[in-house]
């Protein structure tokens, strides 16, 4: 027993402490509790890993039964294998840094204790998700992180936009969870268990499904869940809006950890996908499309956080592509590196926003001198995400693209193009923010060290993080990603990244104004992309409004009030009507009464003569 349960427990305690007593605690105390909790679970994680190293076989710990479904036990069971180990490090490590950063970032905010309570709660659920040893517990974490993301996106609940974004996030995720839960039911119905340790062996004993089959169905349903949590087509729409939340939240939840849960889940279920090629293909295609599509939008955005949000979507697409082409190790590898540079990007952006109180790139510019530390760290992240050789991003992206090429060359090419665009829009953001002349801001100041230190740490990781060979580490879990190293392809990909950077330089530093002209020239196309292909509007018109209006006009007014109640009241009215008719008998006139008596007796007489008529 390694007491894995302590890892999620610390943040939970942090949550309870801050959540229940927070209002009475001092800022310092709150910080101590929140950061301390995460630090504790980080350290405990290291301790456990140290103890279990090299973690050849998964380490399972059963605690107690949660739900006994008929004969099947669904327990609070935690498991640790190399996959979850990687995730643990990301979550606790990056989480720790971001907690520290937040201390500075949120210093001036109201509801301080609430923020950290939520953040801890998130850590708890995220760690549960990662350590869960069965699907239902995984689902608990899955929903839990969704809840925290909801709470944190809506942290500034006085702003309508914030609470809207929060609702959107939760509900869209629910759509994904719908698929996920169905998958769970299907798994249970077919394998009679939800324990990973029992399901996956059972699966791998199945023949590979050529066409449509249960495993494929499960795979696709899981994918639906994944697209929700990891913001893939068609359910990505919530993530850009999620930027309403405080920036550390965007960094932790909507870049580094939660949104990668989908990728983690797909990787976790690799056994299923490998036996359902159709589903796996779907993963790849959705990933690739998302990557490309989001990148195009990223190019046109001006809100710095929105840019990075679309970039996140795009990068997650990369990971799905990786997983989809069978390179699960590469996907997780990219998850790993992405966690560093994307967290860094956001935190950097946060630092900029903190400095200016401004998110619009068009009103920044020339910050390089004012906030040098932020600038340099951001630059590292940008280089890494652009896949500039020997940065972390380079290695992970390279792995994926190679696997993609081996799977289907066109995927490689499209991926590469995306890489170029990625480099372009990231550096576009960098140049717009830090180069050129100040556009509209008076004074800016560098962030306090409590914020810059995490930046530095992350910068180091996003440069060097690639030298930890995640794929190799995960090799025992996944079949070796096919395709040996091809320098050519790698070079092309790297070139694409550099080209993107160069282009960005041309547009936003060398020839300012060229961007506007190009945009003008592109006209309709540009407007289409700038408006995110009107997808939100489409959903609004095609799904939301019909449901709401339909429910109000048709179901409530017509069916409920009109039809059903109408029928009921109709019966009532009819009864009274009958009563009204019957009252007419009572005319008060004796002779008509006599006529009734006569009528009755005659009828009775005849009936009796007829010999009893029933």
């Amino acid at each position, binding site marked *: 027993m390694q007491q894995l349960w302590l890892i999620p427990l610390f943040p939970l305690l942090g949550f309870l402490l801050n959540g229940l007593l927070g209002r009475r605690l001092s800022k310092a105390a709150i910080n101590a509790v929140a950061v301390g909790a995460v630090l504790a679970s980080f350290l405990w994680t290291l301790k456990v890993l140290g103890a279990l190293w090299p973690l050849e076989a998964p380490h399972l710990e059963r605690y107690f039964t949660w739900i006994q479904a008929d004969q099947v036990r669904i327990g609070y069971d935690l498991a640790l294998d190399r996959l979850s180990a990687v995730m643990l490090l990301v979550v606790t490590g990056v989480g720790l840094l971001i907690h520290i950063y937040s201390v500075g970032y949120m210093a001036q905010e109201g509801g301080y204790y609430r923020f950290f309570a939520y953040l801890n709660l998130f850590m708890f659920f995220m760690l549960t998700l990662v350590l869960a040893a069965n699907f239902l517990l995984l689902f608990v974490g899955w929903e839990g992180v969704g809840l925290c993301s909801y709470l944190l996106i809506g942290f500034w609940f006085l702003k309508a936009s914030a609470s809207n974004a929060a609702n959107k996030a939760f509900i869209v995720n629910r759509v994904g969870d719908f698929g996920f839960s169905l998958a769970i039911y299907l798994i249970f119905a077919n394998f009679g268990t939800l324990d990973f340790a029992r399901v996956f062996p059972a699966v791998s004993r199945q023949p590979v499904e050529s066409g449509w089959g249960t495993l494929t169905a499960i795979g696709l349903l899981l994918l639906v869940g994944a697209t929700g949590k990891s913001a893939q087509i068609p359910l990505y729409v919530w993530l850009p809006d999620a930027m309403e939340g405080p920036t550390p939240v965007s960094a932790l939840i909507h870049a580094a950890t939660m949104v990668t849960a989908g990728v983690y889940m797909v990787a976790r279920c690799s056994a299923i996908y490998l036996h359902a090629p159709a589903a796996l293909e779907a993963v790849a295609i959705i990933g690739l499309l998302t990557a490309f599509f989001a990148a195009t939008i990223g190019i046109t955005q001006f809100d710095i956080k929105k840019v990075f949000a679309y970039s996140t979507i795009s990068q997650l697409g990369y990971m799905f592509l990786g997983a989809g082409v069978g390179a699960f190790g590469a996907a997780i590898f990219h998850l790993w590196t992405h966690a560093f540079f994307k967290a860094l990007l956001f935190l950097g952006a946060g630092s900029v926003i903190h400095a200016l109180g401004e998110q619009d790139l068009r009103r920044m510019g020339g910050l390089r001198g004012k906030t040098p530390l932020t600038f340099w760290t951001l630059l590292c992240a940008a280089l890494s995400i652009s896949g500039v050789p020997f940065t972390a991003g380079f290695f992970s992206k390279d792995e994926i693209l190679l696997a993609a090429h081996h799977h289907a060359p066109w995927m490689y090419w499209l991926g590469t193009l995306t890489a170029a665009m990625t480099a372009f829009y990231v550096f576009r953001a960098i140049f717009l923010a830090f180069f050129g002349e100040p556009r509209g801001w008076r004074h800016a100041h560098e962030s306090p060290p409590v914020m810059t230190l995490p930046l530095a740490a992350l910068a180091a990781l996003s440069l060097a993080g690639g030298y930890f060979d995640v794929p190799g580490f995960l090799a025992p879990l996944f079949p070796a990603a096919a395709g040996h190293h091809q320098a050519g392809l790698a070079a092309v990909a790297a070139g694409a990244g550099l080209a993107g950077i160069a282009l960005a330089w041309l547009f936003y530093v060398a020839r300012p104004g060229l961007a506007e002209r190009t945009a003008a020239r592109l006209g309709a196309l540009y407007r289409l992309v700038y408006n995110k292909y009107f997808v939100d509007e489409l959903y609004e018109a095609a799904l939301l409004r019909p449901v709401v209006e339909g429910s109000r006009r048709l179901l409530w007014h017509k069916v409920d009030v009109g039809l059903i109640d109408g029928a009921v009241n109709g019966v009532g009215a009819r009864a009274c009507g009958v009563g009204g008719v019957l009252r007419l008998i009572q*005319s008060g*006139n004796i*002779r*008509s009464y*006599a*006529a*009734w008596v*006569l*009528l009755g*007796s*005659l009828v009775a*007489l*005849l009936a009796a*003569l007829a010999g009893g008529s029933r």
Partner: protein
Amino acid sequence: MDGLLFLIFAAIAVVSGLNVVLQRQPIASALSLVAVMGSLAMLYLLLGAQFIAAVQVIVYAGAVMVLFVMVIMLLNAGRERSAGASLMASALGVPLLAGLAAALAYVMLLAFPDPRPVRFGEFREGGAAQVGYALFTRYLLPFELTSVLVLIAILGAVALAWREGRK
């Protein structure tokens, strides 16, 4: 002979019965009712029920009808005015009555097909002696009850007709 008598008195009975119904003048109805009763008394005789026939004339035609006539006079009930009408009665009345009469008559024919004529004097139990004996033996209870009944009738009549003014 008594067949003829039957026909005559039956005819009288029916005609004056009709008259009871048709007259708009209560007093006229009353008198024709007396006629009905008289003829019925004759038919009772034909059936050998002397005692009943006597009572019919004395009590019924005599006492009861006199009471009626007296009240009619007392309240000088004139020709009835037709205020309002009962659709029910006027519409259904005739067919209903016809139906009733027909049904009952049919039952009688069905139940008593025996063609043997009724002969005067065949039935000798109808004398006062026999009736009286039955009354005071087998039918003692109802006979006693009738006394209560009459008592109630008197009481009721008093209770209703009494005028406070006369106290």
